[in-house]
């Protein structure tokens, strides 16, 4: 078999972060290759390099043996690469045909008009060839998400793609649609197309892919044959055997219940139940962790606790008061600090400098503001103290938030929230995108707060983080707590399986896991040793 795509020593650096570090990747023609890794492992960045969105800092892209340099996605498309992004790029009020042919419409009358008949025929023919069931005249806004995804795939094929990159294609699909998608992928590879499929779900990778490459912290830690691996092996590769941040966890005096969530139901923006009947308590001096694959309701739960989203049922108590419908401001005033998941949408005002951003959330308090009048010199001092203590770079309070790298933005937010003298800290992915040294510092500060009796609700998709910091750890799957475990008594592999929806004591895998491939895992030879070269690749720098 010939190599369709060959990435050779790709390194991609962003200010302060190495997103891809010397990654080699070979993808055989006519196969499905899964790119597996945790959030932030560099999967999407790597594929954006292949798709021409980023220029690699070093390294080479070869297609069918030929080196290529892509200045833009246009170049990559011309070379036969198609990418289907997680968020579809379709024009809702336009029809399927119009979307597929957009920008490359067949012309008539010497090029001045679009030949709609021919466009429609081309789309029908393309759909027939790959066995897609799709109505070429339907409007995008009227078709299901699964169909929209097929339109995206057809769009790429229409533009002549030989290699398709799918970025987390199953994240938006129902289990049935996932099955359909995998059938489509089979059909495409049968006809000689090459698929690269980004995912962080072990079961899916094993089910859909022929080969699986695992990325961790921007490095490739191994490529395995999907038929010859196990979920345990993949989880190990993904998370890394040696836990980088072995936090000296210690114990703290657990105090009274600070926050209590009971039977909370939260709907997401599409009206789907994202959080289903969840109850838990967080006590002072305790870190309560929530682990789970992103998108299983963590965001909605956190937003309900912090007051950005109203729960549809249930009660949230904070400091003894019922705050179920209390405003953000009331919760901030009552001592709730919140490190939000989305730092650039929520956590910082991108156009404001750090002095102004240091005030966000405190503008109604009495520390920096008196009688509605902002004390700017005090506010500046406050921002400078955060910058200093949390090592925000560049150390300049006058720089705009948007000029900072993601990790430094995050450090500033964490600093601002931790220094609020809170009763409860809700930290959602507090170290996402932050460099290793600062992760350690943030973790230390978090445990210091715990030592002072602050209650901490920690949500992270990084297993090592929630496991290392939490006193109690809940695993969330599809909006429900699968289990609440003692993180010290539980292995990463066990947690990985819980995160995939396997309920404890539920060995035969019927615990509601429609989507993930627990069956195929059972069928494969679990004890077959991994390729020894992978282990060598797996070490961290």
């Amino acid at each position: 078999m010939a190599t369709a795509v060959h990435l050779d020593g790709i390194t991609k650096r962003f200010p302060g972060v190495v997103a891809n570090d010397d990654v080699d990747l070979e993808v055989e023609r006519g196969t499905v290759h899964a790119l597996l890794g945790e959030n932030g492992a560099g999967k999407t960045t790597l594929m954006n390099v292949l798709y021409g969105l980023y220029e690699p800092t070093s390294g080479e892209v070869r297609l069918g043996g030929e080196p290529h340099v892509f200045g833009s996605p246009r170049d990559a498309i011309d070379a036969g690469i198609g990418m289907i992004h997680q968020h579809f790029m379709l024009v809702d009020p336009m029809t399927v045909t119009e979307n597929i042919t957009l920008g490359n419409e067949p012309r008539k009358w010497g090029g001045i008009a679009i030949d709609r008949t021919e466009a429609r025929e081309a789309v029908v023919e393309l759909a027939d060839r790959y066995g897609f069931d799709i109505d070429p005249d339907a409007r995008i806004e009227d078709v299901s998400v699964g169909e929209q995804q097929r339109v995206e795939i057809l769009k790429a094929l229409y533009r002549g793609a030989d290699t398709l990159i799918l970025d987390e294609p199953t994240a938006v699909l129902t289990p049935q649609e996932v099955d359909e998608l995998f059938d489509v992928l089979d059909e495409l590879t049968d006809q000689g197309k090459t698929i690269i499929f980004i995912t962080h779900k072990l079961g899916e990778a094993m089910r859909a892919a022929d080969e699986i490459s695992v990325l961790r912290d921007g490095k490739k830690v191994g490529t395995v044959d999907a038929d010859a691996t196990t979920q345990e092996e993949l989880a190990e590769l993904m998370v890394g055997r040696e836990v980088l941040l072995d936090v000296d966890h210690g114990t703290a005096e657990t105090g009274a219940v600070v926050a209590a969530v009971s039977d909370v139901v939260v709907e997401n923006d599409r009206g789907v139940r994202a959080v289903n009947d969840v109850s838990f308590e967080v006590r002072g001096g305790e870190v309560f962790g929530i682990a789970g694959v992103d998108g299983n309701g963590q965001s909605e739960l956190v937003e309900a606790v912090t007051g950005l989203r109203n729960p549809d049922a249930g009660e949230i108590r904070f400091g003894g008061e019922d705050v179920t419908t209390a405003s953000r401001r009331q919760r901030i005033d009552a001592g709730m600090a919140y490190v939000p998941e989305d730092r650039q949408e929520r956590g910082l005002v991108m156009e404001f400098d750090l002095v102004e951003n240091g005030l966000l959330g405190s503008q109604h308090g009495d520390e920096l503001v008196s009688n509605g009048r902002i004390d700017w010199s005090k506010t500046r001092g406050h921002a400078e103290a955060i910058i200093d203590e949390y090592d925000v770079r560049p150390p300049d309070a006058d720089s705009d938030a948007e000029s900072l790298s993601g990790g430094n933005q995050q450090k500033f937010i964490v600093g601002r929230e931790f220094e609020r003298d809170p009763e409860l800290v809700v930290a959602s992915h507090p170290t996402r995108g932050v460099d290793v040294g600062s992760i350690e510092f943030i973790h230390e500060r978090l445990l210091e707060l715990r030592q002072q009796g602050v209650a901490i609700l920690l949500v992270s998709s990084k297993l090592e983080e929630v496991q290392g910091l939490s006193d109690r750890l809940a695993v969330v799957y599809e909006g429900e707590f699968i289990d609440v475990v003692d993180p010290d008594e539980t292995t990463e592999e066990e947690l990985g399986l819980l995160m995939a929806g396997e309920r404890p004591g539920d060995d035969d895998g019927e615990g509601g896991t429609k989507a993930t491939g627990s069956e195929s895992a059972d069928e494969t030879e679990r004890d077959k040793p991994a390729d020894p070269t992978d282990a060598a690749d797996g070490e961290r720098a």
Partner: protein
Amino acid sequence: MSAADRARDALSRLVDASATERILISTAALVLSILIGAVLVLVAGRMTTCTAGEAVYYLGMGFCYDPVVVFDRLFLGALGDPFSGSWSPNGQFAVTLRETTLLIFTGLSVALAFRAGIFNIGTQGQMVVGALATALGVLWASSLVSGALGTVVLIPFGLLVGAVFGGLYGAVPGLLKAYADANEVITTIMLNFIATGVALYLVSGIFKDPESAANQTVPLPEFAQFPALLFGGRQDFSIVALAFGLLAIAALYYVLEHTAFGYDVRTSGVQPEAAEYGGVDAKRTVVASLTLSGALGGIAGAMYVMMVLGTFQTGIPSYGFDGITVSILAGNNPLGVGIAALLFGVLKSGTTVVQFATDVPPQLVGVLRGLIILFVAMPEFFRLMARGLPGTGSKSKAVATDGGTAGDRGGETDE
């Protein structure tokens, strides 16, 4: 690089320009618009006929209109010819300042709403409501006090009435937006028509001055109008009103930059999600900022009644709409509104001077004015608009990278 990329690039450069760069861009735009306007004047001058004595000669060609005279009248004329020795406080300069004063208030009204992320097209309507309320309120109150005491009492009273009623009229679209999710652009435009229509109905009916043929209220007594200190009274300008305007500029600047309320407004304007995160009550902020915006529009109406007309008459000039341009010209900065209002005032008052001094048709002067405003406002306008576009400057979203690289946003463009 394709043309689209280049356009995008130019746009992001505009969006990211610093304050100094913006002033330079505006100045360059002004000069450029004058040059283009000059060419237009020359071309128009070739296409008309005049006697040889009236013509002016450039490069051996005769032109009927002289751009130098036109622009000299437009600018120096509007300032009352400060270099001619015949400058008088009662002359054209007072007209310029009168226009400036009114535009300061309507400009601030629009700017405040803009800063909160709200497009208030309703300043005109708020001005009409404020003007009518002031006229009626002051008429009623003028029977209670008189003389110098009357002036001292009635002017603040009139401004207050204008502010309150303009504010209430601004609160209507605010409430509709906050609690009924009604687009403020639509509602404020509608409310403009309603204000004009209702005012016409009232003033042509129960509040009509029986002794006047026009649709107007009974004139206010002299003591209930702004005193003509220093500038005489001939041009309906009062330095007191301008002082109020400058005070309003300073006050609004202070509110926006130094108070928690202003911080909430600005945060809501640039990033509503972050404002919500920071504990800002979005609904309250919308209502509060539109109310305040309406109050400023109402004060403009009060000024128009108590300084210019001395009565309420239907058909108030479009100061409210001009306020939108003034605000955009000023980048929605209160301090900038002062300068933009002055430029606008100069152009408005200069137009009449040009018409007196030359044969240039008024339509052409209108074109010159429009060119200047268009050129000076466009960079700011693009800055405003571009914030909503992907791939330019601050609001652009990074291409879906893994979390670790999100700090690199803005450098890359989506497809």
